């Protein structure tokens, strides 16, 4: 008698299949470009700093050094743009791509838990995105931080930033995996969430910002940004910063809940293929 494969074994098998597909797809060309832009920008800044040190901006008389620039790029580029956008594009398409390609039938006729398909694809998304984004962060770090700062002294912030970005990739992916598995027009909803809801709600005091992922990510980011006067001016935009344990718990909860809900949606929903 053939035993039905377990959820984990199935998820791992789907992960192996999906990783290669995801990595070498056209969507990943976009991902690679997105990961390369900060590296190119960091290279330009480094070249400018080498050619003309006074080209670096000043805030309140203090010229920004490499560590501050790195922190700004992490927050403004990676945390507020790259990670949410990639989570949205990849997360919403985990099941949608299979539906569009009409290959979902082949997956679902197999004697495997349907939820495992989604879990495996989510894992492939996480690994694919992390392996492209995190090395680019390391390259940006070594390009920027030596400008007027010390690689050794700033190393703890690099480690924390890598962790923050991994947490962001996981949580945005989990959320949008559920959006893609459950809702129609997931991309539109994703765009509204990333570019409308989160930036808007974060600027106003109140409880609404707790319904965003960026709120909890920012609870982790200040520990990575040096307490310089120039950076504090920018951080004043965020008037309420959650505690680190709360942020970690919330992000873990969003990730697990998103993936679980997405798996449940894959189990229960009937996917109608366009003829």
């Amino acid at each position, binding site marked *: 008698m053939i035993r039905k494969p377990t959820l984990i074994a199935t998820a791992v098998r789907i992960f*192996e299949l999906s*990783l*290669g597909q995801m*990595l*070498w797809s056209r969507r990943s060309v976009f991902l690679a470009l997105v990961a390369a832009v900060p590296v190119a920008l960091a290279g330009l800044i480094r070249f400018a700093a080498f050619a003309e*040190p*006074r080209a670096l901006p*000043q805030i*309140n*008389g*203090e*010229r920004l050094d490499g560590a501050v620039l790195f922190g700004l790029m992490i927050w403004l580029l990676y945390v507020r743009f790259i990670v949410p956008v990639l989570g949205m594009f990849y997360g919403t398409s985990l099941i949608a791509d299979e539906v569009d390609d009409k290959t979902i039938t082949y997956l679902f006729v197999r004697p495997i838990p349907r939820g495992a398909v989604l879990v495996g694809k989510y894992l492939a998304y996480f*690994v694919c995105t992390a*392996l*492209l984004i*995190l*090395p680019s962060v*390391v*390259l940006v*770090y*070594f390009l920027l931080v*030596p*400008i*007027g*700062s*010390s*690689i*050794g*002294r700033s*190393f*703890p912030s*690099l*480690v924390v930033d*890598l962790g923050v970005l991994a947490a962001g990739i996981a949580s945005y992916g989990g959320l949008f995996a559920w959006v893609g598995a459950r809702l129609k027009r997931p991309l539109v909803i994703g765009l509204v969430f990333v570019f409308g809801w989160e930036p808007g709600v974060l600027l106003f005091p109140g409880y609404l910002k707790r319904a965003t992922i960026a709120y909890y990510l920012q609870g982790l980011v200040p520990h990575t940004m040096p307490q310089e*006067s120039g950076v504090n001016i920018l951080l004043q935009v965020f008037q309420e910063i959650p505690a680190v344990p709360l942020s970690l718990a919330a992000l873990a909860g969003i990730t697990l809940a998103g993936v679980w809900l997405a798996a449940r949606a894959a189990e229960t929903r009937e996917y109608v293929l366009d003829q």
Partner: protein
Amino acid sequence: MNRKTRYFVIASLLVLGIGVAVGFVAYYVGVPTAFAQQGPDELQLVPGNAVVVAYASVHEVMASNLRERVRQALPELPNGQREFEDATGINIEHDVDRVVAALVPADDGRVDVPRSGLLIATGRFDQVKIESLMREHGATEETYRGRRMFAAPDSGAGLSVAFVEPGLVAVGSTTLVKSAIDRKDGAASIRTNDDIMTLVRSLDRGNVWAVGRFDALTAQAKLPPNVTNQLPPVTWFAVSAHINGGLLGDIRMQTRDETSANQFRDVIRGIIAMANMQADGHPELATVLRSIQLNGSGTTVAVSFELPAETIDLLAPRRLQPGR
């Protein structure tokens, strides 16, 4: 997972792993990177207890447009420069590339009475010619750790000159020159002084700079008490300048407390305002004043200024302007 995917995963993990490992080693061991601003190599010869350290890229300054303008206006060498060349055989304009100078406190550790100085010059020196010139002037010769040292005959402070290595000469008190030779062979240097090195690393890439304790400078200047009592309570200072066609300057001072810094900034603003009142009939002065920026926060007072070549022409007396 096919081979292409496997290679990609391995490459990404390698970049990530190597980056984190290098950062980890730098954090715990303090591996110096080629990119960090550590100052010139000559700092290795400066004692760790130096209270003021200065640097000048003599070659860059001498090759600058500004220096060319001054040289055209003043073709004769200044007396001090000529006397130095006569005594040592070293022509500052052509032979010297970089100079590092340091003020070292007295043996009793009092900072306010610096005792001796050390000057380290890098360049192209005819060692044989210079040594024979010093012998002709009556310098006494001794050998220390394989290097020949020449002590000036009539110098009460024990002024000595030694070639630490080809192209690297140390001038200063005998004790400091010997200690520079010791440092060349591996003893601890100013690079272990976090206070000074933090200031050095904070500097922009100027071709002339000086950092150190402000009270050491005032003590060296031997100012009268009624003047020193009026000076602001500045502890550390860092001055840098980039000399090319014009002059870009940065002066940064650390005061004892925030109140002193605020008062000092107010004083500087007042001086600038008063100068602005006087600048009506002097457009060149107005240009200079407009370039002055006062910044800084907390206990830091920072002043930056820019003097383009055209402004320097306007400021200089007629005899200094080229072609006139």
